[in-house]
């Protein structure tokens, strides 16, 4: 009986940890009025793509998962990201994305702001999920 409880407990733990892993993935989200494709994510976060149709994109960084996002979608670290934005800002007069502190701030902002694009570590409702 004890071993059955132990097995059940282990399975529950495993299930929870698997769910945790999914929750730890980075998801790019947009306001419900905006559609962008997966291949456009890098251009959007580097200021190369500023419009989706006629809608001006409002891009938001998420401090709590920024490092993971940059590594997964852009292929570099925060130092290089900042360096690219400094050069771009100086040459093209563009401003880097403003930063929110965590998932809930990003989700709230993206839901309420036309053209908003951000990323979080969960799959929220009420927004478009790009990937």
């Amino acid at each position: 009986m004890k071993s059955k409880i132990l097995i059940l407990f282990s399975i529950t733990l495993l299930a929870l940890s698997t769910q945790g892993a999914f929750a730890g993935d980075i998801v790019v989200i947009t306001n419900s009025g905006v559609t962008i494709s997966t291949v456009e994510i890098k251009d959007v976060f580097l200021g190369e793509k500023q419009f989706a149709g006629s809608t001006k994109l409002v891009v938001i960084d998420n401090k709590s998962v920024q490092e993971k996002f940059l590594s997964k979608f852009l292929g570099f670290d925060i130092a290089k990201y900042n360096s690219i934005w400094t050069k771009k800002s100086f040459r093209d007069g563009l401003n880097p994305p403003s930063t929110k502190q965590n998932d809930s701030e990003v989700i709230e902002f993206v839901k309420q702001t036309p053209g908003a694009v951000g990323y979080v570590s969960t799959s929220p409702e009420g927004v478009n999920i790009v990937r």
Partner: protein
Amino acid sequence: MVDTENSRVNHHVRQKSACLRIATLCGMLFTQLTFAQAGTEGAPLHGFADAGFSLHSTKFAAGVLDGTSVGAPTGFNVGSFDIYLTPQFDSNTKALVELIFEVTPDGGIATDLERVQMGYIFSDSSTIWAGRFHTPYGFWNTGFHHGAQIQTSIFRPRFLDFEDKGGVLPAHMVGVWGAGRIRGDAGKLTYDIFAGNGPQIAMGPADPAAPNIQTNGTLNINVSGDDNHRAMSGLNIGYEPSGDFDGMRFAIHALRGEIADNSDSSLIPTALNNTELNIVGGAFTYLENNWELLTELYNFNNRDVSGSSGVYKSSASYLQIGAIFTQLTPFIRKEVAVLNQLDKYFSAQENGQSYTRYALGFKYDLDQKASLKLELHYSEFGAETGRTAYSYRSLHTQYAIRF
């Protein structure tokens, strides 16, 4: 006595001018602070500043040490303090305003409204700017310009330097500029098309002893209007492949305009010199996988308009290769400028002498916003009409920050 009085008046004028500059700066900083206190994002303020130390050998002319010094005085120096704002007024309207403070070799403070450009974004493929901007040829001029901390070397290639510091090209322009990017499956096409006031060559006091050989002019970009009503125009078209070739950029550029000097016709029989400037060239950059490769080429086919003496060919180019080892980026650069002295565009300019320069150095990033640099130069200038051949060595260090 009169000199003393003049000197007192000049000192007073300089003091008033310095006060005005400081007041302007305080105004900008106060505005920024007010935005911050109001809890709004306002117009983000960015900038660069640097200080350094330079050591020059004396001139070697015809293989002999001639004892005269070259370039900026030896010793510590304050480089420049550059601030810029990038306000975004709404979805489509933006601006870029840049102000620079520099210490001149004689110890004065020079202030320049470096860029004032107002933009309208129609789409990703089309932005129009109007105002004063960095002339978008090649890579270096728009990529780094006064951003000392973001460029690996301390110095720009000499021929690409600012108009008053050794450059022979108009690094700034007042006019309109269209720019954009068009994304394809395999890469991205970029373009810059621009037109504006053509510069003038502003001559220094003429030497009556040698009226036909005047080599003391510098480019004046004609901020308040074009002196000869001949616009300068150009384009820069680039291609950035993606995938395995990410970080690579190929570009071609062209620049055309008619440029006159303002030499004193009572002293110089050949005044007024009028030259049609025709430049065609290209640039290649690779900035990925811890490599930094930059090269630019400028071919000149300048036509003598006032003297009808023909078309003169000249060229200028550089190649810089750097390798990034985490915080350390050593680099090497060679610059060559072969400038035809029969072409009045070059012979009238103080910096229009042919030269070769080798540069070797490194940049060490203390962190993301602060860098230490060291650079060694060997520069060799050619024997040409009205010019003396000479060479010199120099060592430079710099501490550069960005904010």
